[in-house]
């Protein structure tokens, strides 16, 4: 048996084998079964039990608390694996990671172990932050916890909470200082079994656009009693813990998008190979083929960014406030667009909800739309980037970058350093080394870097310099952030994605490029050239065949990706620059 060059993929391969071909309707965790549950808006309880039996929950818990997570890459890959089959399952099961994350970043060791034991024992933990009237505005929260009898009395409602009804324990953000403010909220572990059925009330499941089987509901308390020991972390530390926890979850949420994108691209590729139009296979029509290859490129960019950012949880925790926002904005947004673009090629089959293979695409599209909405929506994350403009502009101008840490984030051959939650911060003081180090790296590209790639990397640097110059001119405002700043933040994010690709290539080209299965992608830095062409096209959109848009040669680099895309599809490999075998061969 071959060892994948990327260790976390060994976990993916093992679990994929266990669950079998998603196209085999007889399998428990098959596409057909998940689609049927979606039609019935039924929670995938049986599938979640199988995941429990497979020990998936251990990948939500850090090893030091008894779980299996030595690198959050494992969490990312496990969630991605579920999302490739069904986002409802991924969200319904993976939510417990969100429920527990506050403990990993903000609780003392004893309490963290208590939460760990809960998760490892199969308990469902939910994370109750949002309220009906306040959404992402956490500081406006009205659920209160008032000191009483040595503990707290909790009153109020949380709404649009994933697994609010099914969970055993709810990690609840409550106002503990009537005056509110950043130190006015605390987290409480509300154990429903201890509260008893009269201690809380679940609000009805909400009917949603996608993930129709998910338990998206709410929970209300009317003076429920919580013990002093149920307080997670320090009193008043709730918001800080939540914001730090969100940095982890916003990074790892990318897994949902990566899984959905893999499925959408796989469905569309299968269709393009099997469907004839004008007497040719769809895949042989250049326009349709280009839609596939640009979607593939978008997926590679999203994956590389996600891998580097996930390793940055360990390697660059102080800068995660930037990177997590970059990932949470870019990956769901670009995958929404990727799915929509593929939908154009699918035609009517993107719209059909039949119970055969043709009905699957619309489900992916509906399901995925939630990823950009929850856990801090698009605008919240762009705002987070904007809040960093001054430090980012300053650090870029000074060329400041923690090179060792960037290398540790980008080089996937080595296990990342151990995660240290104490190094997380609410506002990065060192900006974003990943991008700030780019000019120096591009000035010293290794011999043998293909000229087209070197040229694209230099253009990326020039674009980054221009973006940072404009960021430096931005005047911070508390509330009335001008719309132009959002545009600028989008450009900044594109620069970071490009930098992630360059660094990923530099640090992995020798090892990953040697793997037989993906050699074609690394040969001549093909995947990198495609990704940089795509990023530059988005940064400098222009007429085709001229300075912008497609690299000046009509986007020929995308056409060279098609054989690699088709080989990964047919051979049953994850769409990825690193080889990962799936039980999904389609020769």
């Amino acid at each position, binding site marked *: 048996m071959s060892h994948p060059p990327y260790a976390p993929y060994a976990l993916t391969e093992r679990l994929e084998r266990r669950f079998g071909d998603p196209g085999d309707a007889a399998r428990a965790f098959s596409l057909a079964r998940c689609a049927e549950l979606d039609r019935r808006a039924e929670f995938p309880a049986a599938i979640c039990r199988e995941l429990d039996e497979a020990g998936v929950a251990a990948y939500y818990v850090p090893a030091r608390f008894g779980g299996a997570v030595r690198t959050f890459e494992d969490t990312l890959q496990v969630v991605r694996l579920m999302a490739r089959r069904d986002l409802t399952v991924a969200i319904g099961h993976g939510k417990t990671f969100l429920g527990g994350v506050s403990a990993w970043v903000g609780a003392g060791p004893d309490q963290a172990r208590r939460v760990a034991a809960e998760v490892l024992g199969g308990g469902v933990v939910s994370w109750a932050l*949002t309220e009906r*009237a*306040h*959404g*992402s*505005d956490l500081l*406006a929260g009205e659920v209160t916890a008032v000191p009483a009898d040595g503990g707290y009395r909790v009153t109020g409602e949380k709404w*649009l909470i994933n697994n609010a009804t099914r969970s055993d324990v709810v990690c609840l953000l409550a106002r503990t200082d009537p005056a509110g403010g950043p130190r006015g909220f605390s987290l409480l572990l509300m154990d429903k079994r201890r509260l008893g059925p009269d201690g809380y009330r679940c609000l009805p499941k*909400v*009917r*949603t*656009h*996608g993930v129709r089987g998910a338990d998206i509901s709410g929970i209300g308390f009317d003076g429920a009693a919580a013990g002093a020991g149920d307080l997670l972390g320090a009193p008043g530390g709730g918001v800080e813990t939540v914001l730090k926890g969100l940095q982890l979850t916003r990074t790892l949420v990318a897994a949902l998008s990566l899984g959905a994108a893999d499925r959408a691209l796989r469905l569309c590729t299968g269709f393009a190979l099997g*469907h*004839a*139009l*004008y*007497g*040719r296979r769809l895949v042989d*029509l*250049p*326009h349709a083929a280009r839609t596939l290859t640009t979607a593939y490129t978008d997926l590679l960019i999203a994956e590389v960014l996600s891998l580097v950012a996930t390793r940055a949880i360990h390697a660059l925790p102080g800068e995660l406030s930037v990177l997590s926002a970059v990932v949470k904005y870019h990956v769901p947004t670009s995958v*929404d667009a990727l799915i*929509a673009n593929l*939908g*154009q090629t699918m*035609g*009517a*089959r*993107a*719209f*059909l*909800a*039949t119970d055969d293979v043709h*009905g699957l695409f*619309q489900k992916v*599209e*509906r399901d995925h*739309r*939630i990823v*950009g*909405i*929850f856990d801090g*929506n*698009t*605008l919240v994350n762009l705002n987070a980037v904007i809040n960093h403009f001054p430090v980012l502009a300053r650090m870029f101008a000074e060329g400041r970058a923690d090179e060792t840490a960037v290398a540790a984030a980008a080089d996937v051959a080595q296990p990342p350093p151990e995660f240290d939650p104490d190094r997380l911060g609410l506002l990065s003081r060192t900006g974003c080394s990943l991008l700030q180090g780019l000019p120096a790296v591009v000035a010293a590209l290794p011999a043998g870097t293909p000229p087209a790639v070197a040229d694209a990397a230099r253009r990326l640097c020039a674009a980054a310099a221009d973006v940072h110059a404009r960021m430096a001119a931005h005047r911070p405002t508390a*509330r*009335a*952030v*001008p*719309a132009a700043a*959002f545009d600028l933040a989008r450009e900044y994010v594109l620069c970071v994605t490009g930098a992630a690709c360059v660094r990923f290539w530099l640090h992995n080209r020798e090892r990953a490029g040697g793997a037989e299965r993906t050699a074609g992608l690394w040969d001549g830095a093909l995947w990198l050239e495609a990704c940089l062409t795509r990023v530059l096209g988005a940064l*400098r*959109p*222009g*007429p085709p*065949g001229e300075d912008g*848009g*497609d690299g000046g040669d009509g*986007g020929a680099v995308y056409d060279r990706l098609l054989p690699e895309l088709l080989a990964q599809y047919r051979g049953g490999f994850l769409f990825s620059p690193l080889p990962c075998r799936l039980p999904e061969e389609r020769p």
Partner: protein
Amino acid sequence: MTHAIAAPADRADRADQTGPAGLEARLGDPLDPANPLGHAAVVAADERGEILAAGEEMLDACGLNAEFVPRSLGGRFERADRLAETVRAVFRRDVTLGLGYGITNFVAAAPVWASGDAGQRAWLARLLLGNRRAAAAYTELRHGNDFTRNELTALPAAPGFVVDGRKELVNNAERADAVVLFARTGDGPGSRSHSHLLVDMTALPAGRRRYLPRFPTAGVRGCLLGGIEFAGCPVPGDALLGERGGAMETVLKAFQVTRAVLPGVVVGALDTQLRTALSFAGRRVLYGGTVADLPNARSALAGAFLDLLVCDALSTVGARALHLCPAETSVLTAAVKYLVPKILREASYDLSVLVGARSYLREGPYAIFEKMMRDLPLVTFAHANAAVCQATIIPQLPRLAARGWPRAEPPPDALFDLGAGLPPLDFGRLAINARGADGLSAMLAVAADDADPRVAASAARLAAELARLRRRCRDLPARDRTVLASRAAFDLCERYIVLLAAAACIGVRRNGTGFRAEPDWLVGALARLEARLGRRERVPADIEARLTAELSARFDDHLTFDLYARRLAG
């Protein structure tokens, strides 16, 4: 042009209860939970997968079908732009109803008006005016938009034809008394091998035709999308519509009309989404103020408003061109069908980001937003998808570049004057190839001299872009004029279509009155369109502020957000 028809504006809000205003009054207050035609009822019907029965009754009562039947045959169809604006009222309320009750009849009827004999035309007119239904049976899923490879056959057999094969995704298949059937009547691969049959379904032997189960869809869930399978089914000889082998040519003409009208009606869906988003933004409090106070939100709302106006301008000009410039509409209507659904879809997505979690809910006060978000994409796929529309234009680009763009005369003012009368629509004059004719794009050069310097500057850049496109398109490689066209050719085509949209906006403003005549919306619209060409400039702040004020005023006064600013119910 002697039979000019009076403009709707001349008799706006007429008392006959059949125009847009009359329909709107019958639809009633959308927000009234007790209204059987309100948002709550529409959403509930969608949840049940049913077309809104109360809506069908209302449309029966006001005889909506007459909008699709030419006046000469007893109906009210005279003008394509007026048809679009009228049916838009239904789409503002419920895309399912608008499509499932309305437009699908028009799509079926267009080939009959275009190529039917007097008897066939009269028969279908009577049928529609009697509130019965017609279905357009074209699609075979195996072949998608590639009509020339359709397999359903109608072979000559005394006393008519024998039909074998199946049609899929046919709206109202099972409840249509008339079916327009696109059938293979010859063996060849070319464009002369298919014919239309106008089939009276009530007269067919029941054992020879079978209705397929409904096709469930993600959006327009209440539409009765079905199919029909024929097995040795005899069809009388007089069912032949137009000449034998002439169906492709008829399609290329008749679908110009429907391709211009369909996007124009769906503008109504974005109207409702924008109204719902405004309502959300005005009520939702975040970080100590309403969402509507956030500059980014205001910008998104104003942007969607501009997008809506662009869509209306392009589709309205496309519809009017059917009457005034029928030589050019093979290109222009394909442009409408390509760009308008795309802009609507993207605007819908942008608004969904603003509305956030509420855009994902199928319940609560904003559920109609979610429904429209699901319904809208259908317009892209239905009735010629994006690639087909572009493929109509791409082979024509070299000739347009060589003949049309350098020296075309601007089109008549009446093309843009929404209040001006129009000559009758003559299907026979719709050319299936523009042969290089394109007057519309000449508006770019006209506006380069505009009195408003912002318009002039933008138009000058757009005219320069047309010159650049001309160089590229004149020498378009031969391969790009075939089905193997490269992405570069598709990109050139898209840029050209964006220029046509800009030209339409320019024309509408120059010939407008009131709000339409003001430069503000045009400056904003051109900025939005230039962004599609890669320009990074935002809509200027003062323009955005004035558009935001207009938007708020229309919201408060219950006026539509399109070019007409008509009063709404409620």
